[in-house]
């Protein structure tokens, strides 16, 4: 009997359409904030160790280009260090995996505790040049930035959110790595920089003890304030997929939203969890 039925089922299995999708890995394009500070910070490695799924490519041309690449089908995962725009929402599905804030750091000895958006704009456009103009000591303000003209995401966000799109001033100390900007502040008592809040945790303790983040518009850059958007220069970190996430991409989103993934997000950012 089994000899008769077995071939029948074998034949039926051959005829039935194959529902199994072959895993083809994850290709990422988009925000360097996500790319560098989450994916390359350990998420890719941990995810691969856990599931065996590999990232075939990680490109960081910026949030907007990443979403375009996703829409064009060049990649299956895009990252944006901002909320999706309404026109983007019509084509892709975004998922918030954490929140980033651009904190404004100064030396711990600097008496300034709070800066308004207008003050920040003045300092970074180069119009306000002395700390006493913003309630501090009479000392020239020596801001440091990432390399100008390289369209660094953090700088662009800060430019947009805090400076109302105005250009950065000239003659600033240009430092390649954002973390090194904080490190530099430890020895620069008149310095100021605007970098990702999460990078503070990545610095050594002696550095951390010599710098501080000022509140903006009276709001401190706490995780709570960053999440609720009350802190001015905060933004959701979004992973975007073409439609509902499927297969390897869905696996990765689940991973990054899991406690293990959120821990990695939490290294540099405010996790959602």
């Amino acid at each position, binding site marked *: 009997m089994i000899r008769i039925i077995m071939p029948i089922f074998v034949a039926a299995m051959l005829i039935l*359409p194959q529902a199994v999708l072959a895993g083809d890995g994850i290709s990422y394009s988009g925000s360097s904030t996500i790319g560098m500070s989450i994916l390359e910070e350990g998420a890719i490695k941990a995810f691969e160790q856990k599931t065996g799924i590999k990232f075939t490519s990680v490109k960081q041309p910026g949030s907007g280009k990443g979403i375009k690449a996703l829409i064009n089908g060049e990649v299956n995962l895009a990252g944006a260090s901002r*909320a*999706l725009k309404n026109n983007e929402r019509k084509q892709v599905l975004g998922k918030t995996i954490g929140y980033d804030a651009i904190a404004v750091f100064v030396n711990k000895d600097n008496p300034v505790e709070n800066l308004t958006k207008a003050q920040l704009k003045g300092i970074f456009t180069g119009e306000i040049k002395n700390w006493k103009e913003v309630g501090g000591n009479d000392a020239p303000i020596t801001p440091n930035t990432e390399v100008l003209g390289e369209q660094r995401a953090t700088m662009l966000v800060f430019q947009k959110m805090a400076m109302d799109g105005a250009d950065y001033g000239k003659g600033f100390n240009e430092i390649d790595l954002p973390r090194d900007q904080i490190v530099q502040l430890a020895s620069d008592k008149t310095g100021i920089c605007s970098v990702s809040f999460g990078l503070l945790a990545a610095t050594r303790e002696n550095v951390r003890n010599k710098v501080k983040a000022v509140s903006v518009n009276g709001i401190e850059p706490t995780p*709570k304030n960053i*999440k609720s*958007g*009350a802190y001015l220069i905060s933004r959701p970190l979004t992973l975007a997929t073409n439609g509902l996430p499927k297969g390897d991409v869905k696996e990765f989103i689940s991973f990054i*939203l899991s406690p293990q993934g959120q821990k990695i997000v939490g290294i540099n950012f405010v996790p*959602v969890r």
Partner: protein
Amino acid sequence: MLKLLKAINPLRILNNFVTRLNIRTNLIVLTLIVLISLTFSTYMGIYTLNQVKIGSSLYEEILDLKSSLEIVALLQSDLNQIRGDSLAMLGEENPDIKNQINENILELSGEIDFRFNEILQIIDDEEMKLPILDAQQTWSEFINSLNNEIIPAINKGNASTARELTSGIQKLRYERFLVQVESLVDTYTLTIEELEVITKDVVRSKIITVIAISVVMFAIVLFIAVMISSAIIIPLKKTAGYLERISDGDLSQQLEKTSDNEIGLLFSSANTMSEKLQHLISNIRETSLEIQTTAITLNKSSVKLSGGTKHQNEMIDNVASAFTQMAQITSEINSKTKDLNASLQDSSSSLYELTASIKEISGFADKAFQEVDKITSSHLEINSTMGNTLGFLDKLALTSQQASTRASDLTTAITETGERATESEKLTNEVSIMAKDNGVKALERMINVSRKNKDLVDDYSKIIKSLGSKSANIGKILDVIYNVVDQSSLLSLNAAIIAAQAGEHGKSFAVVADEVRKLSNTTTVNLKQIEEVVQGVRSEVEEAVNMIDGITNGMDSSILAAEQANNILKMIEDISTQSTVMAGEITASVKKQVDYCNDIHESVLNNSKQVDQIKEVMNEQKKGSDLIVSSVEEIRTIAEQLKNSTLEQSNGSAIISQTTSETQSFSEKLVRAIDGQQDANKHTVESLEEISNTTLKNLGTLKEIDSISKKLGSLEQKLISNISKFKLPK
């Protein structure tokens, strides 16, 4: 997959499986497959219905998502209203309205809290809860800020601070709230779309699956049905062809049995039938060949017997014609004796007229002598006829012997049949009994008959020998008659002298005396002739005696040969009794043969009876001859008396007259005797005719046997040619 299919070779296995199973089991399997297909289709239908219908898992999921979206929309709307209210509060001077707005905000915030709890209960997925929890946190900051900072600022009249907060931090929170919920809205919208697509796909794929499986099942059912039907039809066609070949006579092949099912049983039955036919036909063939051989032998025997019987018939015809001749002669004797009688009557009346006239006596005596002479010659002829008869009887005996030999040949043929029948115990027994009951007994009967015949011939020989001695006696009687005639002559001389002395009266007497003298002279001449004839008779009789002796010897040796044949037959019977097997068909033919042999034996027996009858006839002839002899002796006495009367002369006529009348009476007796003989002859002829008829009948029977054996032969040929049409395995 292909390799696996090849290794299993499901078609071959299926074919073997279907062929080996009973037809009934096959049909049950087929029905089961159809039942499984039906159950599967029904299950798939129910499964699809359960998935798609209202209240199904997909439906419930979609419903939950939709209500979640509805709640999110309501949340957004409520939050918008609170924002509007808070802005309205900023510009409002009337404290009552402010309070009303405040109450409204409280109510809305309670509603929003309730909606967050509701949506968090609806959403099962932890991931999807995360943005809602974030939004809830944002909301709580928002409402805290409103209640604890903005509204107190408004109440204190610090409108600018309240406005700054509302357009600054509260706006940011509101925007963040929207961003946080929009992810859920997008996800759920897409999920709903996807679920709807899935529902459609599920229905479509399940229907396609059901159709595909139904088609596959149908194909399998059809395939198995075809296989089952060919598993029935092919062997049936094979069987039909096989039976057709058998009907054409080809028994050399067997059907190869492939299974133990109904078809296998059919094959076995057909093979058994063929084997039994083979056995039957080879038996018939062997039997036919044996019958053919027997028929040929029978035919040869019957041809031989026919020749012998024809010969016998000719012999019998010869005997019959001889007897007819004898009858004619006897009849002549009779008429002459009657004439004598009439003469004696005449002479008696003359004597009475001429008062015992010696002349008439002499004349009568003369006549009497003439008649006696004639009688003697007649007897001579009888004797010679009897000699012929003996010769014919001799030949008859020979014929009987030949018949016996033929019967013996026939018995040998039967014995040969018996020898061939050695293979069949049953039939051999029957043949043995036949040989014992019919062959040996018949032969014994034959021997008995032959012995009787020999006795008869012995008797006949004795009769003929006594006839010889009687003929010698006739010679002696003739001597006496010679004397009487001499005396008569002397008397007539004396009478003539006396008549001359008597003168006129003696004249007529003198004439008589003269006549008597003449008669005496004539008588003397005749007597001499009789004597010669009697001499001849005696020599013939002697010859006949010698011949009969020869017959007797021959008969002895034939009996001896028959006894030897009988012994051989008995030996054959013993040998055949020891044999064992023979086909039943031979029995019938042998029985027929035995019947024919019995007929032949009966014929031979009839022949013997005829010979017996001849013997009786001969006995009667002997009696007749005895009477003749006694009559001749009495004639001698009469002649003596005549002599005495003539010697006495004086008593002459009276004595002569008396003597004459006595002579007459004896003559009458003689006539009666001859009549008897004539009757006897007639009987003999009749008997011979009967023998002839019987022999003719035998011939007819033999012809019948011949035709039957020929018919048997032709039937055998036909049978053998028919059997040879059958092709038997080597």
